[in-house]
């Protein structure tokens, strides 16, 4: 018997043949002892496997649900916390970036007063004679360009403030979505009312 014929006997055993193919297989089984033997072994094996089909006392669906339900709710809660945490982190990053940018620009240009950094930081003047050119490609005469950098500073500040407000808004939006999800998980009742519903049940 070829491997292909063996697979066909299995397909017959498993009811995976069309009616026409099954009839052809039955005619073949009448004349082929080897295929008949494979079918008999397959049937005997199936009976034995059915005898071993017992599954011990696993969790009931109620026990299973009791175990997984808190994980579903806590995941939603975790999403809310994660939303707030990521929003707060972004806000901190935005603030740090804004401060760093402002300090950098002040040092580089001498700020709105138009003083070079070496003069603005008088005590350190000798130690830091060329701070402006060290940080940015600022021309030696800073006051010609000071106002342009001030404008850039104002623009950067506005952008970071806008970024801060957006992150806070998105964070709040995430919290609202998480609260809505918790509400649905609780079967339609707001979380704050669940204990009251429990008291009535």
């Amino acid at each position: 018997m070829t491997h292909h014929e063996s697979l066909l006997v299995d397909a017959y055993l498993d009811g995976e043949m069309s009616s026409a193919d099954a009839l052809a297989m039955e005619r073949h089984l009448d004349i082929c002892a080897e295929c008949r033997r494979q079918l008999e072994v397959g049937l005997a094996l199936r009976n034995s496997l059915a005898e071993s089909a017992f599954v011990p006392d696993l969790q009931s669906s109620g026990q299973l649900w009791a175990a997984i339900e808190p994980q579903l709710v806590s995941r939603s809660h975790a999403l809310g916390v994660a939303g707030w945490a990521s929003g707060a982190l972004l806000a901190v990053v935005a603030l740090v970036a804004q401060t760093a940018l402002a300090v950098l620009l002040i040092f580089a240009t001498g700020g709105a007063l138009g003083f070079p950094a070496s003069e603005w930081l008088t005590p350190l003047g000798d130690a830091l004679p060329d701070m402006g050119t060290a940080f940015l490609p600022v021309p030696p005469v800073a006051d010609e360009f000071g106002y342009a950098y001030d404008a850039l500073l104002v623009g950067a500040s506005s952008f970071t403030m806008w970024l801060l407000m957006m992150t806070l808004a998105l964070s709040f939006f995430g919290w609202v979505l998480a609260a809505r999800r918790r509400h649905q998980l609780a079967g339609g009742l707001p979380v704050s009312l669940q204990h009251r519903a429990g008291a009535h049940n």
Partner: protein
Amino acid sequence: MTGNSADAMAASAGARHAAELDLIAAAQAGDASAFRGIVERHHRLVAGLAYRLSGDADLADDVAQETFVRAWRGLARFEPRRPGSLRSWLCRIAHNLTMDALRRRRSEPLTSERPDHGLSPFEAASRSETGAAVRQAVLQLPDHLRAAIVLREYEEMSYAEIAAVLEIPIGTVMSRLHSARKRLADDLAPLFNSGEDL
């Protein structure tokens, strides 16, 4: 089977599928009670599959829990294309989780060692010597052969369903089933020869 009874069975299967689609849609919208309905419908299948693949009831309980938690998380992306899709999807998650767990503790041989406490006479009879030998032979099969034979013989899945669960072609399903049966027949030959009902 008469034409009427076949029609009635088809109508019943259609109604079950429609009800399941409703449950899936509601659960996808975040309705936890609908998801509980899904858990109640399929928990025996999922836990039973994990037990038969591992021979470990505690692991089967853990896998069942994790399967449904993951299903909840992935439900938004699930598309029930045809009847039985959900069953196949849950079995695929349970199968993968069970195999991962078995790989992590591969040093221990697989045995079915759950204590027989609280068994009814019927259950005790089913854990007969022959049944235990067959279970042990199944657990000794390589993972890929055991999965195929368990899905076919215990869960009574079609070749197409097994292919969907294991994510392999139908031809590979047939080949694995044949190899599994051949190995089981060889391993259980002593029972054949001793005249037990195999």
